[in-house]
């Protein structure tokens, strides 16, 4: 049986966005204190991961 390959950008984008949402939820519940010093690198890394996934999916 042939297994369908997952759509890489959707997979990576979904994981990254769910991760971001979790960080935001932790901040809202005061479990962590989010500041730009931590949020900016996280957001940039998230965007970078999505771009890499889109690029890789085009090459595949």
């Amino acid at each position, binding site marked *: 049986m042939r297994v369908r390959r997952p759509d890489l950008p*959707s997979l990576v984008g979904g994981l990254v966005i769910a991760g971001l*949402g979790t960080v*935001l939820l932790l901040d809202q519940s005061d479990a962590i204190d989010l*500041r730009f010093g931590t949020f900016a690198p*996280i957001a940039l890394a998230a965007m970078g991961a999505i771009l890499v996934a889109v690029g890789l*999916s085009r090459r595949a």
Partner: protein
Amino acid sequence: MEAQTPPQEPRRLYRSRGDRMIGGVAGGLGRYFKIDPVIVRIAAVALLFFGGVSALAYVAFLLLVPEEPREGAPPPPPVDRNKAATILGIGALILIGGPILIALGLAAAAVALPLAFIVLVGLLVWWLVSGEGPAGGAGDIAKSAALGIGVLLACCVIFVAGFWAAGLGGGTAAAIVVIAAGVTLVVSAFVGGFRLLILPALALALGVGCVSAAGVDLHGGVGEREYTPASAGDLRSEYRLGAGQLVVDLRQTRLPEGDTPLRMELGLGDALLLVPRDVCVASKATIGAGGVDFFDYNNGGLDVDFERRPAAAENGKRVVVDADVGMGAFEVRHNRRDRFDHRRGDEEQDPNTACASA
């Protein structure tokens, strides 16, 4: 004995009769250099944005290059041009037309370059959300760019909506929506993918994230609020505004000796505390993104924490202000500053002088 071939005539540059958009210059150049005239036309349009060079050259070609002879007609005899007159003509053309064309070229570039940038951004966004690069005819490319710009605008709206929702206390719900969007994307990856959701979900996450990181609280209304208490009894324990300009003017306030505590909370905008010169100011401020302007001191950026605790002079008055600004500026001054005047006034020589130790 070899047959003698007739001497080949030199190639001549003509303006094309059949392949022309305006005067047949690009068609003629294409034929002469054996390249597609479309390339010549694209280069000419591109050079328009570099001071109108191509427009000037086009006019020169139009004036100096003859039109190709009609079918069956003998080639025109070489024109005995007066070289000096030709050079003078081109010189005059450059002198008179050059500045005008440069100005026109710059004006066209001022419109066309941002437009080209917007189209490129639209294409990039559409590539990100659909995986389709620019392909097909001009109509297809324009359609992709328009769709990309549409998605980008929708993302901007979602960013602002997420920002306001989180600022007004809906941060938890927004974070849950972000997680749900992420999970939906992961699930959709195994059934074909739903890339269109990536950017909107990211925009929402960034909007909520900015509010969380800056500590923006938009409760307290929007607009300009100015408070001028007459005495210490009129002072509130806290001055709060969601977004806008918050001004607390203590210059006419009768303040008691010793410490007068004050708290200013602003989500987004400018918080200004005006104090008389005989009052010492101690301050602690937290700014998520923006700056502090405390008399002669200023500092700005992200996650700005500021604290100055000078002691008041003996039997002196001291205002102890605790400020929390999400995004914007916190200013403590003796006088209002002109909005557009960022030069230092006389305060630079007279900063917080009512304190015993600054």
